[in-house]
């Protein structure tokens, strides 16, 4: 429970919010249909878990991770190569930023036509803005790479592959992680939204939230929403841990100052 003790202020704040919720519910200040009491939500959770929740979590998580993998596997190398060869980047820069500006949710019908109905279209839709943001961050990370170090690397007569994956990748890694965080937000948002409004097999957290809400099982709705939030927190925590591990060699700028 060391982390509990260390972040006691944060936990106290969360506890305070739940306490306010409990008080509001106990005093019936808000209609229980709109805002169920926290204990009712908690009581609903075991039932949800038995019903379908674990499968839903697995499906949503699976889709989000698939989208992130696609975004990273294609976005990072593409971004690094473009950042390294600025001439190539200048050519695609305009269309790239135009693509980024189109809200991905608006493109879902297009994805349905292009990719077809099914898992592929959900993952493709979630991967689309994720890939773009990871790629753009990789480009800027590579462009900001330490030129003196690149000179040292060039002395070694590295081929493009080594230059990009042994040197530029690490130079751009802090930028890339910023991109990955944003990609996590995009992916989770789009997967849940598509699950909610399109259906596609009646599986996933978004679907669960929608079904609970439309059958007026409000405590379950709140429960599912909160669990979706916790998935987001969990994903962010994983990315942070990964970042701390992969960037453990980073000089601490604050110390130098």
């Amino acid at each position: 429970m060391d982390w509990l003790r260390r972040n006691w202020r944060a936990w106290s704040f969360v506890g305070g919010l739940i306490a306010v919720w409990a008080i509001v519910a106990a005093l019936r200040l808000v209609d229980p249909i709109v805002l169920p009491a926290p204990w009712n939500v908690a009581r609903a959770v075991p039932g949800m878990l038995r019903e379908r929740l674990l499968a839903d979590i697995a499906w949503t998580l699976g889709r989000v991770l698939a989208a992130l993998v696609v975004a990273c596997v294609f976005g990072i190398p593409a971004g690094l190569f473009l950042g390294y060869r600025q001439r190539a980047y200048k050519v695609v820069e305009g269309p790239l930023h135009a693509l980024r500006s189109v809200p991905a949710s608006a493109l879902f019908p297009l994805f349905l036509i292009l990719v077809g109905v099914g898992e592929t279209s959900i993952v493709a839709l979630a991967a689309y803005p994720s890939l773009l943001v990871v790629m753009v961050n990789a480009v800027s990370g590579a462009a900001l790479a330490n030129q003196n170090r690149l000179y040292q690397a060039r002395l070694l007569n590295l081929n493009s592959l080594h230059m990009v994956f042994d040197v530029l990748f690490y130079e751009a890694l802090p930028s890339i992680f910023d991109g990955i965080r944003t990609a996590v937000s995009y992916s989770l948002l789009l997967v849940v939204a598509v699950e909610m409004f399109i259906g596609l097999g009646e599986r996933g957290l978004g679907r669960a939230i929608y079904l609970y809400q439309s059958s007026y099982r409000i405590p379950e709705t709140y429960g599912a929403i909160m669990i979706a939030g916790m998935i987001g927190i969990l994903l962010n925590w994983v990315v942070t841990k990964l970042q701390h591990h992969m960037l453990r060699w980073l000089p601490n700028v604050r110390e130098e100052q």
Partner: protein
Amino acid sequence: MMSGPALSSPCPCALELEDIDFSYATRFNGINGALYKDFSLRIEPGSIVTIMGASGAGKSTLGRIMAGILIPQKGIVRRSPDFTRPSDLVYVDQHPMNGVFPWQTVLENVRYPLEKLNWEGPRRRDRICYLMTLFRLSALSDVYPAQLSGGELQRLALSRCLSWKPKLVILDEPFSALDGKVKAEITSALHELALKDRMTLVLITHNVSDALALGMRCVIIARRPVQVMSDLDFHLGFPREENTPDYDAMQQALINGIRDGLV
């Protein structure tokens, strides 16, 4: 890598700058006045040359022009026909963090260039062992550059940049973060490497004792546009002993040379 015509005549020297014009164009206030105008310098192979000047004199710029990092606006940078690969000529930056890969440990930093330059296993291992011992980095094998002190970082940058036996090395302020004892060790290490691997060394510094520690020839530059104020040859043996009459004489000659440059 060459500016001007390719080698028109064989160059017996290691490096030659001929009638170099260079200036930094700044976006803030237009061309900043010519830094180098019709500047010439010749480095003989196997020599250890020190380029001395006050801070801001243009020494690092000269080092970069020699290395091919900066391209002069006019003039020829002629390199020995011996330099067949990019790795034959190295410029070691003033800030040691620019000469190492922060994401690799000390050992990986020394090993990576040798791997990429295709040194075979046993030869590579021997070279790594030799360098780590010479620069006293063996105890720091698994440490990341961010955790090293300034002096350790400088030793790492030096050992890394010299690992593949380059033919010409331009060292920019290599001793700035080192104290007397470590400096003496590194100086003798550099001298040993220069002799063993038959390197030509160009040292850039503004510190008189650094210049006297290693150089066989000292070029003092000053003024705008940069000119060679003095070109002194040393006849001191190695290792250099301070407080001997020869040493003091050379030290005085250097100080006089610098003082003339400031006037």
